């Protein structure tokens, strides 16, 4: 009998070309995703060195970060992004790389598009110069983000260097009550574990709550692994995974599919497999979670209050909270539900898939956004947008007073023209509430799409459970 192995070990062993020393391995890369914000320098470096792309057919280019989400957009709609988009088009064309640019009906946020098109398969190694690449771990893959130097390395070799990480089993038990979503779970986990819990680890999420989640919700969980300090999160594939993938454009069919599924069924961690660390977090009686601070770990239930910094015994936590309250312009002890908002954003690689839009739409149906709030939806992909429109969701959003935009990273990171102005406060379904993240001196509260919708209606942070 072979030793019981974790899913990580099974996938790692299938990709380890060799140990180069110090525990740093050369690994086969199955899928490489590139985007316009992080790869033109890699193309340049490759060219300077006289090298070629080793496996262009295993590479997928997407433009999503520096794009306009304005209706009827074209390459020039956001002038600041023009150069990056042009470089991306030219580089992908010259190197024979498939590119979904803004004119392609498959365009969208890379971590939405990859799975949607079936570019993601269980058991694969998937890399991309973007820290939210871990999203793809929801399919039982090893997926992680890196920098531009590694993009060039993968282009040249279709392999990557990585120090073998430790493995954490994060067991999440419980079931979700109405109005509470995967986003609330992962925010709570980060709140409990802190932003450094995952450092040095790849995290496998397991437990009854995770098994019960649909695929898109699992993607939300894995997506925010980096906010837990880990480069990679993963969830074992199961029948839901296979059902989601079957028939998608890049997924193999026929005998290959059968062969693949048989192998994929062997991937989940064996009973008795050893993890470097196991941690249990109960999410059984969770309230909708809202961040109040400037790291995703500064979070609490919607019926809660902004903490009083003096209540923290740890001096570092106290200083952090003081700094957060100053930046966020909040008072100790203030009820979260008393915080007025100016912007409401539904989008980003964390929460912009069809199920996210459905959850938000069910909250706002037949209601109106508060008059002082600017509310936006940027669907995660052009495909999601079309699917939502086929269901009439766009009409629900528009009738309520939301802007119904094109797909892209949009207001998540202020690299395009969707930004929160200085001093304004946004409730956002994205993943980072860092200072200046959504624009210089903008203020961000992270929440689930449904909670964003509820806040948009009331013009202040609100308990979405009232609308369920």
């Amino acid at each position, binding site marked *: 009998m072979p030793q019981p192995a974790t899913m990580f070990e099974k996938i790692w062993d299938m990709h380890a070309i060799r140990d180069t*020393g*110090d525990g740093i391995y050369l690994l086969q890369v199955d899928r490489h995703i590139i985007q316009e914000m992080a790869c033109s320098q890699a193309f340049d470096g490759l060219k300077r060195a006289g090298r070629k792309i080793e*496996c262009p057919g295993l590479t997928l280019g997407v433009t999503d970060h520096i794009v306009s989400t304005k209706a009827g957009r074209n390459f020039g709609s956001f002038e600041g992004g023009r*150069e990056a988009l042009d470089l991306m088009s030219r580089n992908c064309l010259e190197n024979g790389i498939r590119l979904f640019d803004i004119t392609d009906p498959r365009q969208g946020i890379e971590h939405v598009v990859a799975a949607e098109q079936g570019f993601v398969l269980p058991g694969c190694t998937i890399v991309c110069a973007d820290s939210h690449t871990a999203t793809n771990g929801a399919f039982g893959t090893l997926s992680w983000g890196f920098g531009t130097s590694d993009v060039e390395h993968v282009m040249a070799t279709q392999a990557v260097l990585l120090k073998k990480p430790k493995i954490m089993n994060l067991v999440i038990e419980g079931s979700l009550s109405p109005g509470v979503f995967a986003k609330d779970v992962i925010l709570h986990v980060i709140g409990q574990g802190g932003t450094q819990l995952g450092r040095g680890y790849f995290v496998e999420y397991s437990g009854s709550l995770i098994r019960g989640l649909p695929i898109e919700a699992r993607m939300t969980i894995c997506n925010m692994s980096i906010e837990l300090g880990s480069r990679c999160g993963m969830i074992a594939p199961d029948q839901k995974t296979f059902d989601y993938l079957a028939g998608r454009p890049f997924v193999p069919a026929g005998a*290959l599919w059968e062969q693949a599924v048989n192998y994929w069924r062997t991937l989940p961690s064996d009973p008795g497999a050893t993890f470097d660390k196991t941690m249990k977090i109960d999410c059984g009686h969770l309230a909708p979670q809202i961040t109040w601070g400037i790291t995703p770990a500064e979070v609490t239930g919607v019926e809660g209050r902004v903490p009083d910094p003096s209540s923290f015994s740890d001096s570092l936590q106290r200083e952090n909270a003081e700094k957060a309250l100053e930046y966020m312009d909040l008072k100790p002890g203030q009820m979260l539900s008393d915080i007025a908002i100016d912007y409401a954003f539904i989008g980003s690689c964390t929460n912009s898939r069809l199920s996210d839009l459905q959850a938000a739409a069910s909250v706002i149906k037949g209601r109106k956004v508060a008059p002082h709030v600017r509310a936006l939806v940027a669907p995660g992909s052009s495909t999601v947008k079309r699917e939502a429109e086929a269901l009439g969701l766009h009409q629900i959003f528009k009738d309520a007073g939301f802007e119904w935009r094109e797909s892209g990273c949009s207001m998540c990171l202020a690299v395009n023209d969707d930004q929160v102005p200085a001093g304004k406060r946004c409730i956002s379904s994205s993943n*980072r509430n860092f200072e200046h993240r959504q624009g210089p001196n903008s203020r961000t509260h992270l929440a689930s799409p449904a909670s964003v919708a509820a806040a948009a209606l009331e013009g202040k942070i609100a308990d979405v459970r009232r609308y369920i």
Partner: protein
Amino acid sequence: MEKFVKLVSIAAPLLEPNIDTDAIIPAPFLRSPSLNLANGLFFNRRFDGNGKPIEEFILNRAPFSSAKVLIGGLNFGCGSSREQAVWALKRFGFRCVIAPSFGEIFYDSCFKNGVLPIVLNAADHKKLAAEVELSNFKIEIDLDAQIIRAGGLEIGFDVPPRKRDALLQGLDEIGTSMLSIDAIRDFRSADRIRRPWVYDLETR
């Protein structure tokens, strides 16, 4: 890659925790590869809304404006994977960042750009921060000996041996991996037979 052997410089302390890569280089500076990233380093903290330097910010003051060593806080470089954060620090003049812990992607990216990231335990980090303040912020980093010197203080540090060698010799990582390209290709050829469904994509 530029070698890193020994460095004598000014150390700029920026000790607060969780300085993320968005803070190091804000997103607007990632739009075009032709932008000078040194101008964007810590932009929202270095400049006010009108683009005027904020005098209190440490990097706007002598001698720190010419510092080559940054002493950061816990979880330095967390968040976005943007390698531009390392490029911006380097373009500004930094060659070494010392912190109790780092965001992992940032930590890896430093080595690939000839920038030395040093992890110090909390006690040593605190001692070092106090000592540089007493010694006009002068600091010496000796990678060969793996020692930091400041005032009367000598602190040893760990660095992964292969990463250290690569910095000392200025080795190019991709060039080194290319030496194994035959082994990589052999591995992939065998893998095509083991897992044909992975490569089916190339025919589409």
